[in-house]
C-alpha cells in the first residue's frame, strides 16, 4: 500500500527538515515555503493531510490558505493541522473571523515528535 502523503507548508527550511525527519518513515512528505506555493502543490497532487504554519510572509497567511481550501468544493475535505502558538492561533483567528475555525486541529509550536506523530496518525486513521 502506498504511503499517505502530507503537504507541509512552512517558511522555515530547518523546521521543514526537522518535521520531515519525524514523519517521513511513515508518510510521503512534500514541502512548500509559502501559501502560494502550497496551494499550487495541492493542485498538482491532492495530499491526504496539510500541515500549515500561520505567520509566513503575511501575518495571517496560513488562515488565508485554509480559507481558500475550505471554500473549494473539491479541496475542502482535505484535513488541515495548523502549527502555531496557541495565542497566535486565537489572536489571528479573531482578526480574520471570530467564529471561523479553518482547520481540523492545531498544534502548538514547537511540537514534540511523538505528539506530532500521534496526532497525524489520528487524523489519517
Amino acid at each position, binding site marked *: 500500500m502506498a504511503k499517505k502523503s502530507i503537504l507541509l507548508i512552512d517558511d522555515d*527550511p*530547518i523546521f521543514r527538515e526537522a518535521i520531515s525527519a519525524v514523519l517521513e518513515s511513515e508518510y510521503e512528505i512534500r514541502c512548500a515555503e*509559502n501559501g502560494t506555493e502550497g496551494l499550487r502543490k495541492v493542485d498538482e497532487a491532492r495530499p491526504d493531510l496539510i500541515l500549515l504554519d500561520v505567520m509566513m*510572509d503575511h501575518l495571517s497567511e496560513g488562515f488565508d490558505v485554509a480559507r481558500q481550501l475550505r471554500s473549494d468544493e473539491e479541496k475542502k475535505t482535505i484535513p488541515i493541522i495548523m502549527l502555531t502558538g496557541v*495565542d497566535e492561533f486565537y489572536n489571528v483567528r479573531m482578526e480574520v473571523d471570530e467564529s471561523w475555525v479553518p482547520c481540523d486541529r492545531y498544534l502548538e*509550536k514547537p511540537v514534540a515528535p511523538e505528539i506530532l506523530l500521534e496526532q497525524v496518525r489520528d487524523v489519517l486513521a
Partner: protein
Amino acid sequence: MSPESRTRFTVIYAPELFERLRWFAQLRWLAVAGLGFGAIISPSLGLTEARSALLLVAIFVAIYNLFFQWRLRAATDYLYENLRSCAIRQMVMDLLALGITVHFTGGLESPLQVFFVFHMAIGTVMIRTSIMYILAASTGLGVFLLYIAEGWGVLAHHAITGSAAGGLDRQLNMWALLLALFMVVYLTDSVMSSFKRHSIKLFDTSAALSERSEELTRLLAEMRELEQRKSHYMKISAHQLRSPLGTIRSSLDVLTSGLVDPSSERGKRLLAGASERVDGLLTIVSALLELTKVREGQAKAPWAQGVSLAQVVTDVVDEMGLHAESRSIRILSRVDPSLVLEWAVPPDLVHAIGNLVHNAIIYSNEGGEVTVIAERRGEQAMVCVRDEGIGIPAGFIDQVFHEFVRTPGGRKQVVEGTGLGLTIVREVVEAHGGTVSVRSIEGEGSEFCALLPLGWAPAEHLQSLQGGNE
C-alpha cells in the same frame, strides 16, 4: 441655600467683603472731615446749637471707625460670618450718627437726608438683602419718629436759616444732592469694576478649563493608541523570538530522539540551522534592545550641540565602503558640508543612517550603485539613500517602517534580517524632530529619505537653546 453652595458663597465672597469693608472705612474719614467742616460753618447757617453736637458726632464716628479699622487689620482669616456682623454693626453706627446729624441740621429739611439713600446702596452691596430691608424700615421709622418728635415739640427743631435766608437751605440741598450723585456713581463703578474683573477672570478660567479638557481627551486617546501599539509590538516581538526557538527545539528533538543521526548530512544541516537561528535570535535581541534604548532613553541620550550632519554621513559612507566593495557596489555621495544640527545624538544618527546605507547595499544587486545625498531644504536637512536593488512591493510600502515587517523578496535576499532596522531609523529620526519617507518600485530600487530640522532641540534642551539665542 444649600450648605455646599453656602460654603462656596462664603469662600468666594469673604475676601471681596473684606476689601469692601476696608474701602468703606477709608471713605468714612471723608464723613468725619465733613462733620468737622459742618461744625465750623454751622453758626453761619443759623445752627447755633449744632456745633458741639456735630463735633461730638465727628469724634464718635472717628472713634468707632478707628476701632473697625483696627479690627479689620487684626483679622487674619476671612471668616465670612464675622465680616458680615462687622458690616452690620458699622452700618447701624453710621445710620445712628447720620440720624443725629440730620436732627441738628434741620430735621426733615436737612440736606444730609440724601445720605440715608447712599448708605442703603452701600449696605446692599455688603450685607444680606433681608437685613437691609429691616435696616431700611428702621431708618424710615426713625425719620418718621424724628418728624413726629420735632412736630410735637418733644425734640427741638434746628432750622437752617443763615445770612442768605430763603435761598441757603435750597442751595445746601442742591450741593448735598450733587455730592450724593457723584458718590453713587463712584460706588457703583467701584462695585461694577470688581464684578467685571471677576467675570473676565471667570471667563478666562472657563475657557482655559475647556481647552485643558479637550487636551486631556486628546491625550487619553493618544495614550490608548500607544498602549494598543505597544501590546501589538509585544505580541509580534514574542512571535519573532518564539518562531526560531520553535525551530531550534524541533531540530534538537529529532536529533536527541535518534530520528536523525547528528553526524549524518541531515543531522549536520539541522545543527547548523539551529545554530543560525541562535545567531538570528541574538541579532533580534540586540536590535530590540537598541530600539528600546532609542525609545526610552531620549532623556539620558548623549545629546550634543552643533553636530555636523555632513560629517556623520561622510563617516557612515566611509565605514560602509568595504562592505560595498565586497559586493562590487559603488557608493556615490553628495554631501553639503554646511549641514549642522543644533542638537543630535551622534551615535544614534550614525546607527540610523548606517542602517539605510547597509540596507541599500544588501538589497542591491551585485555591481549596482548606491547614492547618498545630504542637502539643505530651507531650515531642514534632507538625507536620502537611493539604490537600484530589489525594491519594495506596493503592498508593503506603508508598512516597511513597522516592527518586524519584511518583504518576501527581502527575506529571500537577506535571510538573517530582523525587520527592525527601519523601525530604528524611524525612531531615531523622530527623536530628532524629523520624519522619514520611502519611495520604491519593485524590481527597480528604493529611496529612503530622512527630513531633519536643523534648529530642532529636544524638550529638555529647548530652554538652553532659547537662552543661547537671546
